[in-house]
């Protein structure tokens, strides 16, 4: 009976139009399963046994990627509720906790973000310890470093969004650093040299910090700026670079191994 149902389902035109190969039972089908699926074909058909070992890669690149996907999905769901304005932001947070169904979306997003930062560091640590940045993978290491910076920026911009004391003061401390940028921060070395007809070009209303937080103090302008960067700008760049990163892993000969 069950066999029959299974058969009529897997033989149906609908099923076959989706799953071309079925459960792979021989090597040809194993290869086809990898080639025929847009997600799976990120992988090659065969991998080195040494690279397959969890004790070799620690699964950390994959973990970072998985957490990025979790962040994207939970972030999208949060966007349904969250309004990035000074009036609403904080109270939307309260509602997310008290009212929204399945109210752990914020937790998933926040803990996922912390975990992603750690995973990316550990991934870098692994890549260093196996010497996988050496030729031909120098460029991919560099793509990775940019991804690391983007991960930190994502986490930093997201940190402001709850709009509570923790959020704005953490961002205040962080963004105060921009004031001291050499040349383009008001209190940075050399900024006094940038003058035009005796007027200072770099002042609190025009320096790097002003550009970062869209004002002299953190406020509604900062919130919307960080929101857009956090939910659209940086994720786009990061997703693109992750694609480049994976492409290069393949093009550089798959996971590294001794030659």
């Amino acid at each position, binding site marked *: 009976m069950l066999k029959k149902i299974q058969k009529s389902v897997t033989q149906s035109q609908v099923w076959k139009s989706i799953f071309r190969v079925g459960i792979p039972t021989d090597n040809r089908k194993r290869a086809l399963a990898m080639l025929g699926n847009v997600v799976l074909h990120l992988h090659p058909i065969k991998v080195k046994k*040494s690279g397959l070992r969890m004790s070799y890669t620690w699964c950390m690149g994959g973990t970072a990627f998985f957490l990025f996907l979790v962040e994207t999905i939970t972030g999208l769901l949060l966007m349904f509720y969250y309004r990035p304005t000074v009036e609403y932001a904080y109270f939307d947070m309260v509602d997310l906790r008290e009212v929204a169904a399945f109210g752990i979306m914020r937790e998933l997003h926040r803990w996922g973000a912390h975990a992603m930062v750690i995973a990316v560091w550990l991934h870098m640590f692994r890549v260093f310890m196996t010497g996988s940045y050496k030729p031909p993978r120098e460029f991919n290491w560099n793509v990775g470093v940019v991804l690391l910076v983007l991960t930190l920026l994502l986490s930093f911009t997201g940190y402001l969004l709850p709009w509570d004391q923790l959020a704005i003061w953490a961002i205040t401390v962080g963004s105060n650093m921009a004031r001291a940028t050499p040349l383009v*921060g008001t209190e940075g070395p050399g900024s006094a040299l940038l003058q035009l007809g005796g007027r200072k070009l770099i002042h609190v209303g025009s320096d790097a910090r002003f550009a970062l937080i869209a004002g002299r103090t953190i406020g509604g302008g900062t919130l919307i700026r960080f929101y857009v960067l956090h939910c659209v700008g940086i994720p786009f760049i990061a997703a693109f670079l992750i694609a480049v990163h994976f492409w290069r892993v393949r093009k550089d000969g798959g996971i590294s191994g001794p030659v």
Partner: protein
Amino acid sequence: MEAIKDLINFLSYPKWSFTLSLVVFFLLVRSKKLWTRRGGLIMLVAAVTLFSLSLLDPNFRSVVAKPDNVPIVMMVFLVGFFLWLALYKGIRNDELIERGEPTFEKSEVEDKIFTWPDLVFIEFICMILLMVGLVVWSILLRAPLEEPANLAVAPNPSKAPWYFLGLQEMLVYFDPWLAGVVLPGLIVVGLMAIPYIDTNPKGNGYYTFKERKTEIILFLFGFLVLWCQMIVIGTFLRGPNWNFFGPFEFWDVEKIEPLVNVDLSEIIWIKVLGVGLPSHWLPREIFGIILLALYFFALPIVFSKTRGLRRYYEKMGPPRFYTGVGLFLMMMLLPIKMYFRWALNLKYFVHIQEFFFNV
């Protein structure tokens, strides 16, 4: 009990704990064989026991159990575990290499395995475990939400997000333009430069320690001692007014630490030479400027001629060598400044407030 706690509190003050960590780092690197085998397990048990016992202390618990600090505790254990794993595998491979046998990875690298099902299943199971872990974590621990934002009431201490606390900790020793802008920028530049500076062709694609000793020690020093340790200090041991508090100390807002730091110019002009400070910045700061110039420009040249380092100079060529040494000296500026601070209460080597140029 109290005596032990007091001792730990005392030892965790940066000047002792940092020195201790240097010693431990040296021992870890020297006697890897001790702890990359069963010793690692003993250390894990000891760490977990110490941590659990510490949790009994209310002051310790109140800091460690802050929802945002929980991930950092996890990070400390994870970093420890993976350090053990990487060196354990490296040492085993080193032994194989010494006996003229292929490394562990080498003996498997020719063996190609079908991605389906092996890799796909591993990934699938990892994903499920991670998701379960994340959901459980989210149910157990609520995301923090404090009072609504209010720019008029600054919390004390005000801390940056945890992954930047290493940088905030550097603010104790450097001005923001260095600690917040230049040094982080150089960390990124330095990381990017690694593949182009390191020309050692060995150790590509397998764990090893012997074949890449220098690289690994330098990286571990930066990653563990400077980056991770500074984050731990900044997160767990810095309380109100960014004062230092031992792990079992109460975060007392009233605690006052006298500010007695002096500049190099004051030490030399006033204390040593016994004349006053010159009024123009150039003569006033000339000693610090010369010192920095020697450090950044003369020292690399000395290095290139020193016996042990000469080898690298010849192997790498001048551009790589000088870039590498420059980045290394930049990194070492931090521990050097720390020790000058602890030994002499040194505030700045060079203090040109006129241009906000303080080092």
